[in-house]
């Protein structure tokens, strides 16, 4: 199997879906002539023409509005929001409209669109290029939210997202784009939405995470093994609907849960996971649920030193794991 980066996996998957299905088209800022700021659609306009590769104005609300309109009328749009930080003008379209179309039309209309959103920090992006925006969409019934961490998952989940008949928010962590590489089969495989994956099996403690943090957690788990702590790692992969079963099974086994996320803690994915554990694993818990999250401050700092201090790291995860395992 070829080894590709996350951005290559995304690019290859969109290309392959567009080749297979003429109703799939893409729209977004600079995705045509520029090939996208992360080059996710590099060369697409030459391949598919400007009718299927639409450069839009800097107007996220319009991008999503157009996508919704075309999706309701039988197309399968893939909208690209250049940076997650810019999605806010489109929240009304996504949360206020797209999520409610199936319900609001008595199921007569569907909205099979995918909104690709590069998100997350650790890239010295500062206030406007580092945000985690997953919670606002994960809170919204009618949406599906996917956050792959590996090239394999990115490809399989993106294929499922494009083929899904409901709006899917597809979150791509921009730091994984070129940092994370992995084997990706060239065939037409899909990964079901809503399924977490045990990325590493362990006995003493479960770490639940998603996105970029998965890689820090996996590195930390190797260190923890040397300290005599066997860590099981759950990669959520889909944030809505969240895979309760996998979380509950793992935490019930280990009795200890650490949730690691790049997003701030209050009313976040970690809050939801924590609630699920409390609801379903209470009698199997051997220690309080622990969360490792950044400081509750408005932005991810721009200063490299502060950014590093702000984000969970391998060392911080190892420290939290050993702390939790010693309770």
């Amino acid at each position, binding site marked *: 199997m070829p080894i590709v980066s996350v951005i290559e996996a995304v690019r290859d998957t969109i290309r392959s879906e567009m080749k297979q299905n003429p109703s799939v088209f893409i729209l977004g800022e600079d995705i045509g002539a520029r090939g996208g700021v992360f080059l996710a659609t590099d060369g697409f306009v030459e391949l598919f023409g400007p009718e299927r590769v639409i450069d839009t104005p800097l107007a996220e609300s319009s991008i999503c509005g157009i996508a919704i309109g075309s999706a309701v009328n039988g197309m399968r749009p893939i909208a690209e929001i250049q940076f997650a930080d810019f999605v806010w003008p489109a929240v009304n379209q996504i949360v206020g409209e797209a999520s409610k179309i199936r319900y609001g039309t008595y199921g007569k209309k569907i909205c099979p669109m995918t909104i690709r959103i590069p998100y997350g920090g650790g890239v010295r992006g500062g206030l406007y290029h580092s945000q985690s925006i997953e919670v606002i969409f994960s809170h919204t019934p009618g949406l599906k939210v996917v956050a792959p961490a590996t090239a394999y998952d990115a490809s399989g989940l993106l294929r499922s997202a494009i083929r899904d008949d409901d709006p899917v928010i597809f979150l791509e962590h921009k730091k994984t784009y070129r940092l994370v590489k992995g084997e990706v089969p060239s065939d037409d495989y899909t990964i079901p939405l809503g399924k977490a994956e045990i990325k590493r099996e362990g006995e003493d403690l479960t770490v639940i995470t998603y996105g970029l943090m998965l890689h820090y957690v996996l590195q930390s788990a190797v260190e923890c093994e040397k*300290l005599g702590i066997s860590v099981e790692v759950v990669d959520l992969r889909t944030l809505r609907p969240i895979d309760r079963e996998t979380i509950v099974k793992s935490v019930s086994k280990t*009795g200890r849960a650490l949730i690691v996320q790049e997003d701030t803690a209050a009313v976040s994915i970690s809050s939801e996971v924590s609630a699920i554990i409390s609801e379903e694993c209470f009698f199997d818990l051997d*220690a*309080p649920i622990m969360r490792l999250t950044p400081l509750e401050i408005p932005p991810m700092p721009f200063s490299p030193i502060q950014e590093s*201090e702000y984000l969970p790291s391998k060392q911080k995860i*190892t*420290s939290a794991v*050993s702390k939790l*395992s010693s309770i």
Partner: protein
Amino acid sequence: MKIEITLPQIGESVTEAVVIKWLKNVGQDIEKYEPIIEIITDKVSMEIPSPHTGKLIEKTVSEGETVPMGNMIAVFDVIDVVENNRPTDITIPDQSIIGSISDVAAVGPTGGEFKDNSLITEDLPKQTREDKDIDKVISSDLEKNRYSPVVLKLAEQHGIDITHVSGSGQNNRVTKKDVLNHIDKVNVDEVDVKNTITVASDDHFVTPNPFRKIIADRMVESSSKIPHAWTSVEVDMTEVKKCIDSNRESFESLHKIKLTYLTFAVHAVSRALTSNKYLNSSWIDNKIVLRGNVNLGIAIAGLDGLSVPVIHNADGLGFLDICKKLSDLTMRARKGELQLNDVEGGTFTVNNTGTLGSILGGAIINYPQAGIITTESVVRRPMVIKSNNKEDIQIRSVMNMCLSFDHRIVDGLEASSFVQAVKKILESINTRTNLT
């Protein structure tokens, strides 16, 4: 407002402390967190800070006194007490401000450190703000006897008293792993009780052959199921010896068979059993099964270990037939040529331990029979003989016979009457006895 000040619980393993010295006097105004008393536990000495701002009104313990944790040590007149129905909040200060620990390593009973931190030697960042928040949440939850849900669940499932489980968690908290280890240990202990054999480094193991295993299983079955009791008699074999001596040559040349003590014993036992039927029986399912025939097993050391060939219907056989059967079975047993029907159906067993030089034994019954009798060595020894109302000492040939019997089936009375019957038959032998 007057309140009682108690000695705070310091670490789970510490139950009491000795007062070294009062640091404040009655009547003194004391600030919150000011050290008021110095104590020493079996681990450390430390100063206990005041939990409140107020005036010391009364000392209820004196220097040198041993005070259990949680007991009152003083009375304060307090001005800063907030109404609070959780007395622990009043009396137990935050662990982080419990007094100075002198002359000990940082493993004191306050247990404030996470033990695993010491394991991490590289790249450890200094505690972040969230880490401290986590600490606070955890330590406030880890008061004495606070068990996690899974610990309580496991303890209930396995019927374990958690107070007997030693804790490896923070502040000696009992963790899930501790309970699981405890369960494993209890299981291992149970196995150990059953199997306390220890093996030294210069010992070595021999895997028993299948015969040995069968014998072992049968012995265990018998000794564990049958309540054994024992009795023995001494039999004067002098006349039997004379009989053998006078008939040996003619008997052997006629029948090509050796004339032995065992033959007489087997013959005598077969006869005695016919009039002592409860020795020729089995205890099966709370019933006594009286056997219709006397099928006499003879314990013989063969090639593959002990075998017990059977003389079937021995009670119907004459002396000579018993002698022939015995000779045949013995020979084939020693060669390892016994057939299945040769060893089946025994109802009672004779064990000729005398050939091994034994004079006394307590044999294990051949399950599910009711008894086994041993014929021990025939020994020449002085004996008091009474004849014509006159006693004198003679040198006689004497043999012990030892009976092991199933005490569920018979008591000492029946057992004795049986061995007496055997003895009587043997002692009635003389040189004129018909050996056919």
